[in-house]
């Protein structure tokens, strides 16, 4: 049975090109359906059509019809669908209406005019379903990202909707929080039969849980089917799936467990040589930034505790650790944006930083002007550098667009280019892969490696271990404001519980490109050098 039906839906935002083109889709009732696709492929727009936010809230040109549990969004506004669809936006914090979790969960019930006794029961059930009963009296702003996201889901779930719609619910939270959120969604889907429609970029965790995947490309449905069939040739597939594709395994694995089973069934490929380590960068040069015994306190709470850290020319350092571990604070201290209570940070060269939220930075009317503005602030003009960074991050085709009309992943790249164009040798990037698709990550990876190879250095604060494995030479793990582990990226990542997937299948290789390089060497005649 079809729960949500799209019939010939075409939609364009005001003053924008069409975001969806003649889209036909049936979302099966009771399924957990995953929507994937590149930045700007129309995932968010598709999700927002389900309860009529598009076009009722967005405005724009809308043709075709979306029927959600028998009600057409043409004549039902989002509030009229609140009893059948719960929707959760990407930024968990901005969607809370009430400053107490329990009352925020009850918000939808009050609006649906439920009697007090029913509300009381529904709130308890929703809190238990998401495992957040102990957080009921807290203010959402005091919760961690994963807790916030689960509280937001509880707020959508309280009305017992037939479908839950979530836009990248794990993109802003750490792997542990992401696991909690996805586990909660799987449980709701399995135990309550709730139809779940979910958009995600990072597929390592989400793809194995899905019954069906819908792949979008430029506003059209490119493929619909089981995860294994749709991911067979999708560039954003999980590492183990791409590994299986490389080695010709059938069926393609989606999880580490399936990949290990496949590896046991097939003969071990002839892999020559040791993995060379991330990008094959030259040996580190001089120290560019040196932090010694840094203590930072914010609002009376100790955030960084005795952190020492050297950044050399030619290094790419991944800064890992859960939300609230002090990653952003360390970046701010390295950039000289906050003072230290004790300890010193000394930089030999200019240090530029890109904020976590690109919107905090962007203000110009076009992407190109955004880059030129940085150079103007530095008192020079350098058209060559502007062109270089536009191309390096793959945003040259967007150069004349307004930054505000771009997708999250695209804006992220514009912000990085706008900072990098200033020519500071040290770049600090805070969660640069948030909302980025596979192609954007590739562009970011190449740009970061090229910057380090030319004598600069990059620090990436990230939850993305796969990215860290692909491009970092060093890694620092923070926990509760202390350095828990530090060293070369390979050994730190290899020893972690959250190691990259490929390591678990074909040790000591960390990434698919490691394996690919080894296969090439073997094909060339087995010379390990």
């Amino acid at each position: 049975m079809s729960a949500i039906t799209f019939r010939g839906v075409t939609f364009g935002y005001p003053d924008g090109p069409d975001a969806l083109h003649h889209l036909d889709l049936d979302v099966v009732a009771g399924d957990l359906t995953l929507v994937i696709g590149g930045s700007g492929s129309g995932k968010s727009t598709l999700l927002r059509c389900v309860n009529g936010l598009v076009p009722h809230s967005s405005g724009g040109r809308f043709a075709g019809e979306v029927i959600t549990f028998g009600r057409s969004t043409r004549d039902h506004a989002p509030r009229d669908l609140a009893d059948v669809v719960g929707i959760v936006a990407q930024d968990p914090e901005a969607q809370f209406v009430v400053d107490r979790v329990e009352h925020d969960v009850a918000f939808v019930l009050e609006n649906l005019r439920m009697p007090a006794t029913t509300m009381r029961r529904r709130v308890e059930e929703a809190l238990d379903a998401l495992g957040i009963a102990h957080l009921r009296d807290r203010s959402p702003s005091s919760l961690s990202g994963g807790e916030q996201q689960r509280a937001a889901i509880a707020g959508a779930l309280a009305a017992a909707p037939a479908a839950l719609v979530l836009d990248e619910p794990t993109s802003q939270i750490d792997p542990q929080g992401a696991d909690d959120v996805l586990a909660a969604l799987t449980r709701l889907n399995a135990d309550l039969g709730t139809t779940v429609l979910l958009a995600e970029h990072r597929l390592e965790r989400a793809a194995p849980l899905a019954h069906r995947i819908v792949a979008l490309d430029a506003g059209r449905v490119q493929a619909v089917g089981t995860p294994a069939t749709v991911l067979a040739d999708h560039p954003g597939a999980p590492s183990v799936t791409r590994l299986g594709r490389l080695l010709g395994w059938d069926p393609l694995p989606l999880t580490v467990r399936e990949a290990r089973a496949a590896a046991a069934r097939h003969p071990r490929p002839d892999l020559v040589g040791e993995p060379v380590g991330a990008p094959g960068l030259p040996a580190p040069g001089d120290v560019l930034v040196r932090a010694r015994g840094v203590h930072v306190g914010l609002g009376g709470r100790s955030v960084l505790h005795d952190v020492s850290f050297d950044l050399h020319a030619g290094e790419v350092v991944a800064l890992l650790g859960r939300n609230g571990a002090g990653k952003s604070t360390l970046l701010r201290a390295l950039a000289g944006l906050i003072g230290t209570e004790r300890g010193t940070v000394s930089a030999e060269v200019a240090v530029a930083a890109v904020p976590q939220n690109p919107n905090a930075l962007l203000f110009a009317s076009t992407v190109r002007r955004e880059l030129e503005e940085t150079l103007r602030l530095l008192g020079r003009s350098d058209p060559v550098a502007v062109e270089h960074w536009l191309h390096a991050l793959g945003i040259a085709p967007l150069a004349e667009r307004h930054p505000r009309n771009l997708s999250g992943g695209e804006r992220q790249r514009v912000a990085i280019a706008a900072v990098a164009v200033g020519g500071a040798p040290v770049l600090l990037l805070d969660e640069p892969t948030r909302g980025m698709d596979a192609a954007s990550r590739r562009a970011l990876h190449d740009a970061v490696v090229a910057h380090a190879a030319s004598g600069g250095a990059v620090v990436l604060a990230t939850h993305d271990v796969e990215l860290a494995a692909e491009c970092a030479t060093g890694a620092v793990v923070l926990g509760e404001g202390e350095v828990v582990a530090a060293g070369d990226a390979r050994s730190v990542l290899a020893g972690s519980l959250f190691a990259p997937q490929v390591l678990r299948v074909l040790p000591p290789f960390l990434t698919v490109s490691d394996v690919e390089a080894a296969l090439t060497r073997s094909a060339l005649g087995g010379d390990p050098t």
Partner: protein
Amino acid sequence: MGSGQGTAERPWHALTWVVWAVAATATLQLAPSPVYVLLVIVVAFMVVQTHGGSGGYARAFPVLVGAAAVFMVLRVALTALTTHGGPHVLWTWPALALPDWLGGFTVGGTIEAPVVAQAAAEGFVVVGVIAVFAALNAVVSHHELVQVLPRAFHEVGLILAVGIAFVPSTITAVRDVRAADRARTGGRVVRRGRLVRQIVPVLDLGLERAITLSESMDSRGFARGATSRRDQASGWIGLAGITALGAAFVALVAGRRGLAVALTGGGVVAVIGAIAVASAATGRDRYRPRRLRASDLVVMAGVCLSPVLLVIADTTGDRTLTWVASPLRWPGLHAVPVVAVALLAVPLVRRPAPVPTPTTATRETVAAVGAGVAAEVTT
């Protein structure tokens, strides 16, 4: 609504805090002498320290008080430059007589100490009122306030509460944008054009947040359901009541006291009736509204005693309550007004439970993960 405290048990009901703020404002009006105003500001500061938690409104307190102080200084400067006469000349500046069509007064000239002191004292009362207002915002749960409102005002009140929530999120946005602007150039500060560079992203962040929030409210059924006939009836009754109150004012000005009293009575009854009809029409139940406890009533009574004591002191001829700068002398201090102001500190007898820190795992877990790599650690 990223606000307030992380903790649950706010010791006092929102209504108790409103009564506290009203009592404190009345105290400021009844005892505007700078010493008593200073005492009220100290109490407000302590209230924020104890009950404000680490939320954005507590951070907004010094910003608001600072802004009020700036206005006080401006006011003193303007008054000193334009008001002249009297003893204790501090210094003399060149004077400029404005033409008649600009008011004809003299700018500059003699600057007298009593004028400066009087203007400062008056400005200081305003600082006190702002401090009380900022403290109320820092300690009260705006949602609890909405729940105290008549049901007919629920949605309007909620919109106001959500609007107020943008104060702390805007302060955060300003901080983030300034940091981003500095970090962009590798620490080089460029002042020229900085306002535009910073205002556009702040507005952008605010707009983005507002859109997310409004969509979240819409998706969760806010303002669902069409207007009923009772809503319309309530609207008409309310309009009639407000018209009657307006007419009462006109009658009062015209000297028709009897008519004014009658119109006022009728207007008030109509407005209350309109609220009652609309509240019954919403058919809305509230989720676990907080009830007033006996301790809340005790605190309310305690803080209300403050203005009562001051009225008594005033009628018994306490000269320290108000202070006049001419002739120039130090403001006096009496025991009764000090006790009265101290009563405003009654809410401090209870403090909220500590806020849990936003972490999901313990140090031990971190250590366990770290143990796997301990061998390779090279710090």
